[in-house]
């Protein structure tokens, strides 16, 4: 469904963030993108919805070639791609509900959004999503009153209310504690399954990636160096992605986690 061909991104300073990336994500697949900081993970997903303009290459979503779109068509195409951000990126001074509804901005006109007169079905959907993530009682709280985990749930709702086909997720757990991180990752994966969404999840935490994604892509210095199942991440592969380090402990820990995961309480 998403097809990236020969994607190159070169910054004005001359640094190549992405060197000839080729990637295909079929419908409904949750894919984790791992790699060290600076590998180009963020740049890659930002090229997909063109928050960053790629230098060359093609990106297709469904039948549309994203990198050729004009402003108006681009806005339409962005509605089909929900994005979840690293530091939540909620508009802090707006209420939870307004933040969720802001996901519909691509669908409603300016004055309607200005007076917060969203269609009733959007409001119903917003309440349904907030209920799903357990925050419907907080609808009128201001976003900056929420905890990190709660904010990220609102961020998820904002992305889902767009009714997307693809989720672009940028380090969703970077500023969360380990327990909340897992809850958020589990929530994202469950929602993707419920709604048959494809997702690209940027994540630097190898453990979390292995726990939740069935396909892992490793990025190093703007090039794909691994593409395969989580259990293919051997010590050698990790060394190739992240550099020399003792990886045995990490791999072992994952196996223990997976054995013990039955006892984990549900979110």
């Amino acid at each position, binding site marked *: 469904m998403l097809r990236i061909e020969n994607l190159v991104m070169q910054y004005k300073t001359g640094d190549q963030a992405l060197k000839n990336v080729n990637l295909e994500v079929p419908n409904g697949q949750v894919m984790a993108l791992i790699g060290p900081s600076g590998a180009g993970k963020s740049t890659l997903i930002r090229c997909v919805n063109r928050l960053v303009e790629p230098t060359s290459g093609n990106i297709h979503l469904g039948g549309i070639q994203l990198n050729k779109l004009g402003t108006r068509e681009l806005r339409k195409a962005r509605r089909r791609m929900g994005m979840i951000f690293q530091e939540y990126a909620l508009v802090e001074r707006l209420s939870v509900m307004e933040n969720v509804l802001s996901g519909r901005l691509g669908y409603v006109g300016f004055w309607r959004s200005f007076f917060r007169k969203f269609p009733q079905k959007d*409001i119903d959907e917003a309440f*349904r999503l907030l209920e799903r993530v357990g925050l419907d009682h907080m609808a009128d709280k201001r976003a900056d009153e929420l905890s990190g985990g709660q904010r990220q749930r609102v961020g998820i709702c904002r992305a889902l209310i767009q009714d997307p086909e693809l989720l672009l997720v940028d380090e969703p757990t970077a500023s969360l504690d380990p327990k909340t991180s897992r809850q958020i990752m589990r929530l994202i994966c469950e929602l993707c399954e419920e709604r048959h969404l494809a997702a690209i999840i940027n994540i630097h935490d190898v453990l979390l990636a292995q726990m939740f994604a069935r396909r892992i892509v490793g990025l190093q210095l703007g090039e794909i160096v691994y593409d395969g199942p989580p259990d293919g991440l051997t010590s050698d592969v990790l060394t190739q992605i992240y550099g020399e380090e003792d990886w045995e402990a990490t791999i072992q820990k994952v196996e223990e986690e997976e054995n013990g995961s039955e006892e984990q309480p549900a979110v």
Partner: protein
Amino acid sequence: MSTSRNWKRPPFIKNPTLRWGLVLGAAIYLALAFGTMEVNWSRVAEGATRGKRFIAAFFPPDFSSRLDSISDGIYESLWMTVTSTVIGIALSIPVGLGAARNLAYKPVYYFCRGILAVSRTFPEVILAIFFVKLFGFGPFAGFLALSVGTIGFYGKLLAEDIEDMDPVQAEAIKATGARWLQWLNYAVQPQVMPRMIGLGMYRLDINFRESAVVGIVGGGGIGATLLTSFDRYEFDSAAAILMIIIGIVMMVEYSSGYIRRWVQ
């Protein structure tokens, strides 16, 4: 699935009586304010032609025909600006020290706060009116007015800065057995100095702008020249003066920004 739920943006002010009261109050105020504003529309219409002439006077402004009085005015203004900033800041240091709660005894504190309050309340122009009455027309009156204004501005900020300083550093120097003046020099001065230099530059900037104004009430400087050219409807000279003022302010602002960055 849950039934339809309504949602409205929560209002900024929760209490509806207060909210509508404020809206109504604002509406009544605006109606009254505009209602009591007497506008002589025929005079305003007449102004349109003058306005056109005035704007036309900017292309090109006439720097030459009043060159003597313009350069005299600028010279006076610059003199006033520099002297009043220097003297004003020099005088505001003892007052500011006295007005810092953590430094001065209560009677001294109230006395100095009083000086600051009085010199801050009245705009420089009103001060200038009185100094003109006392010392006659000319830049000396303007210089005094700006100096007093500087004391109020600088003294207050200095006092506040000293009150906000880190007490631990101050205590540490005191513990060495330093004399009061040594203590000021080693504990207080280093803490407030960078910010105060910046504020001094800022005040220089303000004083130049104000120096253009005290002339209107007889305090000398470029303001007097400007007033004369307006009174004579010499808009092209007035345009030249305004452009010079804007130019000098830009220069002062730019260089003060540079100095502030350099100090910090």
